């Protein structure tokens, strides 16, 4: 290192800097960029139960063990068969045959990450449901692949019976077709990682911003400084001047908007001032009213929000306080975000503007907090205020509830016929299994499956046109857990489980259906499954 480099290094070590990341941070670097330390810590304290050590189940687990869940258990009483040894990467070929499927899979999965605790439980689900069902409530989430329909019914009923019990992910596959569904009562998301950005509130500039923009001496400013006024300041100024001349109203008509933009460009001192070009391009922000998004204001009317009690979950308290904030604060908007996009500006002008936004955002956060009826952790309040424009509350249904409602299925099929076809074909297979003798070879005909699917629909309703394609594939390979389908399901199910555990990003709300003949995935949305 040169002397100068050494000098720079010495003079900068006075600043408090982080040291190089530790091994764990380096290992998880590529995922921490998606769900941050908060998501990672949720994963690390999670406990996942997987029922039956099939190829699909181990694929799901692989994608959960790698990012570092805390614990997983595989519940499976069976021994490895030659068939299992042929399609499951987490078995060691013929040498695993005859050994416990759960133990073999746990052993090989644990090799992927020594920070994860894995356990094989050789009891049957039947035995657990009979003698030890409370044990099930000890997990964060439960995943079941191709479970016997009767046992699945009992399992889903039990996990649905108490709102504090873990969500259940039901995964079904046959040959090239598959679907999965997450049974949960409610799932709230604060950090949805939405791509829509919060309003800069140019139309409702807060006092300090308004004051700054209206007192800035544009005319007598040095040419360089003039070319570095942030567009936000330009717009607030031009809008204020405009309103004074137009009865307090922003530009309304196309002609007025054009005139407004021309006014911006006329303020330039030189023809190449990029900040004024930015202001012209962003001019719509001046006449687009900052309002509360409808999806958020709908939350304000939710009965559970309106009637919060001290024992209500924090999310409801936060939304309740947000509703009051919007109603009582003079701007009637969501709390201001302190995040400012980059724009053409000098460092000092930009930092000054950023400071104004930050200060105001802090004030509004303090006002927001005054409406909270219970104490809530500071980092949760921060995240909530920052994401208040993109909150999400999902309400679910019990597994199978939709199948009892033929009219709802018909309605869903109108919106998503291909998706409904896959769902009906797999449901028909479940019905056939339900009626067959345990252990008997499963070779249903297209006719038998079609009959079962038809029975799920109300009398007179016809199956979607795409049903023939779906049912033919199920009849072709009713018991095939194909490696590629297992791997694809393993990815999608793990992704959704990660969203459920971290409470970041938005999980599916309905049935995710998959057809790997035509290479598509789709969603049969719960919101479309309504008669």
């Amino acid at each position, binding site marked *: 290192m040169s002397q100068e480099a050494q000098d720079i290094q010495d003079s*900068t070590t006075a600043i408090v800097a982080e040291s190089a990341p530790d091994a764990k941070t380096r290992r998880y670097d590529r995922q921490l960029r998606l769900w941050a330390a908060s998501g990672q810590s949720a994963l690390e304290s999670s406990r996942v139960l997987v029922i039956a050590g099939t190829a699909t189940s181990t694929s799901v687990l692989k994608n959960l063990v790698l990012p570092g869940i805390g614990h997983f258990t595989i519940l499976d009483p069976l021994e490895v068969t030659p068939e299992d040894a042929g399609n499951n*990467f987490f078995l060691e070929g013929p040498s695993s045959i005859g050994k416990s499927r759960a133990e073999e899979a746990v052993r090989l999965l644990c090799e992927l*990450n020594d920070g994860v605790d894995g356990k094989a439980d050789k009891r049957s689900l039947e035995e657990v449901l009979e003698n030890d069902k409370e044990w099930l409530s000890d997990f964060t989430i439960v995943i079941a692949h191709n479970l016997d329909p009767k046992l699945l019914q009992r399992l889903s009923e039990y996990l649905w019976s108490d709102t504090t019990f873990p969500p259940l992910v039901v995964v079904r596959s046959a040959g090239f077709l598959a679907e999965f569904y997450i049974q949960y009562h409610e799932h709230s998301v604060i950090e949805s990682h939405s791509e829509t950005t919060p309003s800069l509130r140019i139309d409702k500039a807060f006092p300090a911003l308004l004051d700054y923009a209206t007192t800035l001496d544009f005319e007598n400013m040095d040419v360089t400084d003039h070319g570095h006024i942030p567009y936000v300041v330009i717009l607030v100024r031009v809008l204020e001047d405009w309103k004074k001349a137009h009865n307090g109203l922003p530009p309304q008509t196309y002609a007025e908007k054009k005139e407004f933009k021309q006014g911006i460009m006329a303020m330039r001192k030189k023809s190449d001032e990029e900040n004024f070009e930015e202001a012209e391009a962003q001019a719509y922000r001046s006449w687009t009213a900052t309002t509360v998004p409808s999806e958020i204001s709908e939350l304000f009317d939710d009965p559970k929000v309106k009637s919060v009690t001290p024992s209500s979950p924090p999310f409801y308290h936060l939304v309740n306080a947000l509703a009051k904030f919007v109603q009582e604060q003079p701007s009637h908007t969501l709390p201001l975000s302190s995040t400012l996009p980059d724009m053409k500006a*000098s460092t000092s002008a930009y930092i000054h503007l950023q400071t104004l936004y930050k200060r105001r955002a802090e004030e509004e956060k303090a006002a927001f907090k005054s409406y909270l009826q219970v104490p809530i952790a500071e980092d949760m309040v921060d995240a909530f205020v920052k994401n208040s424009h993109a909150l999400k509350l999902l309400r679910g249904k019990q597994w199978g509830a939709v199948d009892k409602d033929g009219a709802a299925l018909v309605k869903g099929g109108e919106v998503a016929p291909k998706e409904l076809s896959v769902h009906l074909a797999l449901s028909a297979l479940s019905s056939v299994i339900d009626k067959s003798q345990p252990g008997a070879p499963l070779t249903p005909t297209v006719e038998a499956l079609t009959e079962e699917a038809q029975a799920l629909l109300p009398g007179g309703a016809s199956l979607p046109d795409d049903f023939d394609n779906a049912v033919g*594939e199920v009849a072709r390979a009713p018991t095939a857990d194909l*490696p*590629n389908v297992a*791997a694809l399901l393993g990815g999608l199910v793990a992704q959704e489980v990660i969203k459920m555990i971290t409470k970041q990003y938005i999980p599916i709300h309905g049935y995710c259906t998959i057809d790997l003949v035509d290479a598509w995935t789709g969603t049969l949305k719960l919101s479309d499954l309504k008669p």
Partner: protein
Amino acid sequence: MATETQSQPADWPGRYFHIDQVLNTPGPRTDESFLAGDGVKDFLRNKSKILVIGAGGLGCEILANLALTGFKDIHVIDMDTIDISNLNRQFLFRPKDVGKSKAIVAAEFIMKRVPGVKVTPYFGKIQDKDDAYYMQFNLVICGLDSVEARRWMNATLVNLVDPEEPESLKPLIDGGTEGFKGQARVILPTITSCYECSLDMLNKQTAFPICTIANTPRLPEHCIEWASVLEWPRVRGDLKLDTDDPEHIGWLYKIALARANEFKIEGVTWSLTQGVVKNIIPAIASTNAVIAAACCNEAFKIATSSAAYLNNYFMLIGTDGVYSYTFEHEKRDDCPVCGGEALEMTLKPTTTVEELIDILVEKQDIQIKKPSLSTPTKQIYFQAPPQLEEATRPNLEKKVSDLVPPGGEVTVTATTLPFSLSLRISYSE
């Protein structure tokens, strides 16, 4: 690599119970040419030969899937070695493997885990291999994160096609991921849209203007760029910046942090510094699993005809529910690799050669870093070798219209690309 000598255990009864269900019987959408039963199984398991490019996030998954579906002669190329940050998703590698060749470790792991599969690794560059090498495969799957390597592979396979010889057409299956997003596609060289046809679909990288970095920093990223682009060469001289060296990253981080403090800019962290200088793309096991499975499923369908293959593009976005879109990406007639027609380009009569080069570098559907230009009769500008560069340098200031007549053709080449691009020049006014 002692694995070559391993005895290959015979298949055991029941091994292909799952796979055989779709190989014994056609489905409603299966093409009539499908030969259900022993014929197709024999081809898949004993005759087909498949090449996997990349043994990283996608590659590990691809190798495992191919082995389980019954491909037994698999080759894999990767020039990289294993890094600790790979271990959150590249599941064939363990901490003890850090520093070793990805291709070799992955191949050994697959052969140990899936009996009877032969995986032949090559620890090196795809450019090391010639046409004869690529000709031996039935299929190629690409799981790469480098645009340049994919362009090379794509162009090589397109150039390989000899219309007289059907065997010369090698289907290329390409996968890519970024965070919760990804895509898988099937390319039939010369027949369907190729990788080059869709270059404009790539996200444009954010580039910060040098004057912002030097004079008006506002974001933490500006401070980091200042440290790496301006301060590093100024202070550290000829020492090449190694973004994998923690000492180098630490130095940049401290310089960037000092500048940020001077300007009262918040948010310079070690992680951001590393992210900006290495252009890190978030990557997770689950997205890689989905895209690799989609790629391998297409390889399986193409090799067996058990179901129609993807036509031709599958795109996944997993941030809000599971959203995917399957569509046919259109072939471009003026694609420099598979189109055959010259790219039309209208210039001002005053445009100089240097300005034309800037236009080409900026153009999203071309993306050439250091183009060299010539006409059928003369050299306009060559980036290398140095003597030729020097000889053609005076042309940079000349107007293109003085060198190329209206409607004339300009050939663009670059050392990084195994093909040339034809421009047909016209002039405005």
